[in-house]
């Protein structure tokens, strides 16, 4: 990815560049420049920088994505209650307007920064970087980044997170993964939220939701979660503890600034979909990186 040394020129594309020298001429006398750069290069640089920030402090960063009203903030509230150690967690909230979500998190005694994106439909790595500088990170183990409620745009922007958590709430319907393949393909874990509504909304078939998820080539675990009256979070809390342990193990190996869990932006990097040991997902990538 650099224009100085020519390392973006590979055996596959060298002929394009060398046809008439570095500045090959077109027939009508223009200079033709082969670039082969990702459109989100800027964002991805910043995301890598954020990830190094997290790793240097031994923090696990998770990017929460769902539709508006999918239950992200309620999940965080319930998770904070369950972990019962407000100092371990900070939250970055993304919304178009208002401080409402950050206030809900602060009411639990947890540090939260609200990013008001204005009209932007997603968070990007630069916004997250700014937010990080407004947080006290000593003693923090987990940074939750609650993305703007949207099943489309957030999937395209790497924030520096170690894993993507995608929420599918029961009232939304079981065919969401088929409708939003980019989002669900990016997920490292999918949480079926508001699962306590399944008896009422009986047209939602969890097996159909899982089939739709598998059809987009995802092997991410699909975990049932209820955040309200009688919270049922065990699968999610287990996943969280496993991911924390995996992150600690990865850092102990001395691996930092690893590739994002989702590496789809690098068009030349072909990645395997299957992750045999799902619960060691973060670690799994770290191992890939180390070899």
């Amino acid at each position: 990815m650099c224009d100085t040394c020519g390392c973006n020129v590979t055996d596959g594309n060298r002929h394009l560049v060398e046809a008439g020298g570095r500045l090959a001429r077109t027939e009508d006398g223009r200079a033709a420049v082969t670039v082969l750069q990702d459109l989100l290069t800027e964002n991805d640089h910043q995301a890598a920088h954020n990830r190094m920030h997290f790793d240097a402090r031994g923090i696990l960063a998770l990017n929460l994505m769902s539709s508006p009203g999918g239950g992200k903030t309620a999940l965080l509230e319930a998770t904070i209650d369950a972990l019962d150690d407000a100092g371990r967690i900070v939250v970055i909230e993304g919304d178009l307007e208002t401080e409402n979500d950050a206030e809900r998190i602060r009411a639990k005694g947890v540090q939260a920064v609200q990013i008001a994106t204005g009209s932007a439909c997603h968070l990007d790595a630069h916004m997250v970087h700014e937010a990080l500088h407004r947080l006290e990170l000593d003693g923090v183990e987990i940074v939750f980044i609650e993305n703007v409620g949207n099943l489309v745009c957030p999937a395209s922007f790497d924030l520096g997170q170690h894993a993507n958590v995608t929420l599918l709430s029961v009232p939304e319907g079981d065919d969401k993964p088929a409708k939003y393949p980019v989002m669900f393909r990016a997920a490292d874990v999918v949480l079926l939220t508001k699962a306590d509504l399944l008896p009422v909304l009986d047209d939602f078939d969890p097996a159909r939701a899982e089939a739709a998820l598998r059809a987009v080539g995802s092997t991410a675990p699909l975990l049932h979660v209820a955040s309200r009256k009688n919270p049922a979070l065990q699968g999610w809390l287990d996943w969280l503890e496993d991911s924390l342990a995996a992150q600690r193990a990865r850092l102990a190996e001395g691996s930092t600034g690893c590739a994002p869990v989702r590496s789809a932006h690098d068009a030349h990097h072909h990645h395997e979909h299957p992750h045999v040991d799902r619960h060691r997902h973060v670690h799994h990538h770290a191992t890939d990186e180390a070899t």
Partner: protein
Amino acid sequence: MARRRRVLSDAAVHELSICQALVRQLRGISTQHGGGEVALVKLRIGPLSGIESAQLEQAFPLAAAGTPAARAVLEIITAPVRIHCVDCGTETATAPNRLLCGCCGSLRTRLLSGDEMLLESVELELAMPAAAIA
């Protein structure tokens, strides 16, 4: 006025921020190569990148206005979604929401193409006439 507002709101999704990043890349490329105007921009976009080509085309002039890319033609090549099956080795062209092997149905597949969002190449008007360089 009403029309302008509609165009802006149509483009006010992530394609606009992507175009802004693209225009910054184009500015840099133009500067590196003598400051010529950008005449042609070739992109390769896959359906699994999450970018809509039509939205990109709409947002590009807004992002490029007043830059060396203001008059550039945007050429977008759509990359097909192709997968390779780890189990049976078959290569299949498929739909973005069906990444299962077309032959054996396995979900152990590797994406060969379809998630690209690549700036492939750029053509610049030479800042000076060719004769003056030679």
